[in-house]
């Protein structure tokens, strides 16, 4: 099921140490860790699916300052390309 997105992220995957704190912190549950891809340091990193609310929870808890949070002026409807 797709959901509308009120915000989006820029993720600096190269700084991520793969601690997964953002996965539990994300209330809409739209962040998940990669299972195959790794960054240059060798860590798995988070990926975003549609449904972000720009609540900043991931950015606040991230020890490595990996997230940049953007809030859309108009929500992006489910299924529409971001």
């Amino acid at each position, binding site marked *: *099921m*797709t959901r509308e*997105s009120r*915000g*989006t*992220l*820029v*993720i*600096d995957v190269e*700084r991520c*140490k*793969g*601690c*997964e*704190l953002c*996965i*539990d*912190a994300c*209330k809409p549950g739209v962040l998940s860790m990669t299972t195959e891809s790794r960054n240059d340091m060798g*860590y798995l990193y988070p*990926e*975003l*699916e*549609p449904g*972000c609310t*720009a*609540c*900043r*929870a991931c*950015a*606040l*808890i*991230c*020890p*490595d*300052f*990996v*997230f*940049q*949070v*953007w*809030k*859309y*002026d*108009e929500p*992006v409807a489910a299924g529409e390309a*971001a």
Partner: protein
Amino acid sequence: MTGVIDTSAPPSRPARLVDDFAPPLILPGAHQLCAGCGEPAAIRSVVEMIDELGLTARAVGVFGIGCYTSFSPGMDVEVLQALHGRAPSLATGLKRVQPRSIVFTVQGDGDMVNEGLQEVIHTAARGEPVTCIMLNNGVFGETGGHMTATTVIGQRTKNSLEGRDPKKHGYPIRMAEMLAPLDGVAYVARGATNNAGNIFQLRKMLRSALQAQADGLGFTFVEILTMCPTGWFLQTGEAPDYLEDKLQAYHKVGIIKDVSVP
């Protein structure tokens, strides 16, 4: 499962930035701490509240010795380095010489409670208008993860592998509750960095403490419970729940004293 969104560049649609990578006063990549550490979120909250209150030009940090010390070269706030546990005394001298400055200390539980307990108690009792911030994770993280005076009963550390046993190791010290009854103390609170709700609450506490100092009300103290998955022998993802179940059960989160509220 729907498709993954491209997060390599800012969105092309109209949008506003609500949270940049690193906070305004911290250099990106400023630290080399372990994955899953709770201290960067705490330091970030401190500097963001200083920035929000417009106190950046007047703020001076006094750092103790611990993992968090790796932030001191990467911060755009004046920083003084104190010896183990001596940060409150250095902050006292600084505040007396420069009364207009906003002085905050950053210390760990090992630094403040084990190595320099008398410093912070006397500073509080004298009512020095400084803000002491203690990052409490119950282990000496930097020197290998052994037990501190605030380690909770049953917590596993390098030298209490079966869990802290009060018969053998004594009972933990509740710093915030110990300092609150002193007359010179204006504000005491305890926050945590294990989830977004607690971080928002923590930011309000830090804001109140710094404001109380700017208003000259007296000594202010904020204790912050932080995760140390390395020292707790846990997977990084389990540490926030462990903090809630174990540490918060003994060290209760909340505002303990606030003289500005009648």
